[in-house]
């Protein structure tokens, strides 16, 4: 369903992504790799937040490289930001209602907050401003992606800043999302527990795909790399 062909992203003389090629139709795919390896950039290119300097994004057989963000959203892609965006004046309920494409009213739309461990009655009318904590923002961000229920859901480090208790709930959300959409879920993560639920893993390093395979194969590849680095150090 998703195919990246020769994707590169260069800013000035800095190569951030270098000829990334991949094709996936899997249920849970995790993207991992060191800080600065280009994971967020890659996912932003899929959503259309960044235009690649070369290459194509193919979604369901269609070249969407030139489509604006909202057109991709309509075609079935959603994205939960690594750093959720804050708005003065807009409320949690406003955005959740929008996430449901206006099909539910604010009260109904906010029921999804229960899945991320927030009481809808307490959060519905909260402004998405800096009075919400980082973890609360993150949970709301995940709730929005769950509400959209897109064929391809992108999550950028969803577990970051979320406490231990909600970790299991997070995995339940991914499972429920899959049950609803039967689509694909692409999760950027450094967390072993997330990697462990992935069907496949993409290991990105220095802007290139070093390894993309079944989970266990990539996990042993990463372990070998880490061992080698430890020995060298």
């Amino acid at each position, binding site marked *: 369903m998703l195919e990246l062909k020769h994707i590169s992203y260069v800013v000035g003389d800095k190569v951030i992504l270098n000829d990334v090629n991949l094709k996936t139709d899997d249920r849970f795919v995790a993207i991992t790799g060191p800080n600065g390896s280009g994971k967020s950039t890659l996912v932003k290119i899929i959503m259309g*937040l960044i235009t690649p300097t070369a290459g194509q994004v193919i979604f369901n057989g269609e070249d969407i490289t030139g489509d604006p963000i909202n057109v991709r*959203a*309509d075609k079935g892609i959603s994205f939960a930001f690594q750093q959720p965006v804050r708005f*003065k*004046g*807009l409320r949690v309920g406003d*955005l959740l209602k929008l996430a449901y494409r206006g099909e539910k009213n604010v009260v109904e739309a906010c029921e999804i907050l229960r899945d991320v461990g927030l009481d809808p009655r307490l959060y519905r009318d909260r402004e998405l401003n800096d009075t919400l904590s980082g973890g609360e923002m993150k949970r709301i961000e995940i709730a929005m992606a769950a509400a959209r229920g897109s064929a391809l859901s992108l999550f950028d480090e969803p577990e970051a800043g979320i406490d231990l208790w909600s970790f299991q709930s997070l995995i339940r959300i991914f499972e429920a999302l899959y049950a609803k959409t039967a689509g694909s879920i692409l999760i950027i993560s450094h967390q072993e527990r997330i990697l462990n639920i992935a069907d496949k893993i993409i290991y990105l390093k220095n802007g290139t795909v070093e390894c993309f395979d079944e989970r266990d194969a990539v996990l042993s590849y990463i372990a070998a790399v880490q061992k080698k680095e430890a020995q060298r150090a």
Partner: protein
Amino acid sequence: MTETEKHILKEVAALDALPVGAYNIRSNGVSAARNTTADIDIVTKEDVSGIDIIIKPGTKNQSVHIPVIISESGLKEVVYNDFFIGADCDVTIIAGCGISNCGGHDSRHDGVHSFHVGQNSRVRYVEKHYGEGTGTGKRLMNPTTVVHLQDGAYMLMETAQIAGVDDTLRETKATLAENAMLEIHDKILTDGDQHATAKMTVDLNGKGSTCDLISRGVAKGDSFQEVNLAINGKAECRGHAECDSIIMDRGVILATPALKAECVDASLIHEAAIGKIAGEQLDKLMTLGLDEKQAEDMIVQGFLR
């Protein structure tokens, strides 16, 4: 009432019918309807155009509506409304002015409102300005608000100008006695070649007095906004002013803070920020399916809510 008048009444005072409680509806320079209650009296002024609104001490949970409608092109008026609010009251005052100008002459309403708020009274004052009409004549409004808060009095002012006023100078002056508190939430949206100036001056005279002035503005098109927020701390007091603006297109915003402390125990803060809509905010709403224009509108609407 004509359809235009009814429509304006809805825009400025959210009224579909005559309100309950006390009211005075001014339409094209004359009082079109009035109601007084046992606790709230409304008296026409003798010397100048306008009314005195007298609220008895201890009046609680009552409201006064004083909307102004101008639908005659070319009408110009200066109106003085004085509010005398006794001690220990808790009242809501809904003012507002709507101009519909379909002609070629400028229409103008200059309203001077003064409030004398008695000890320990609470007042919520809501004022909305609105203009419409297809004529080439301008729609002009210059509201002046003078507020005197006695010991322990509290006033919340919610003022908004959301559409259709070509030129406005809003002046607000307030003096606060001991433990009095003033909160102002001002919202303004300008577009086209509109001009808007807001000047607020608050004197914190009494010990323990506090004020919180919050101004939010959006300047679109070629419009121009100027915001002056001045707080004078003359006693042990706390003052906070915040001016937050979004500029779009070729809009211009000038924000000028002025804090003056005349007492070593005065604590005054000013915050001002002007900027365009953040790109990531647009991006986020677009991932939820809005196109760029719709995303912009939603952000502006939320910001001015």
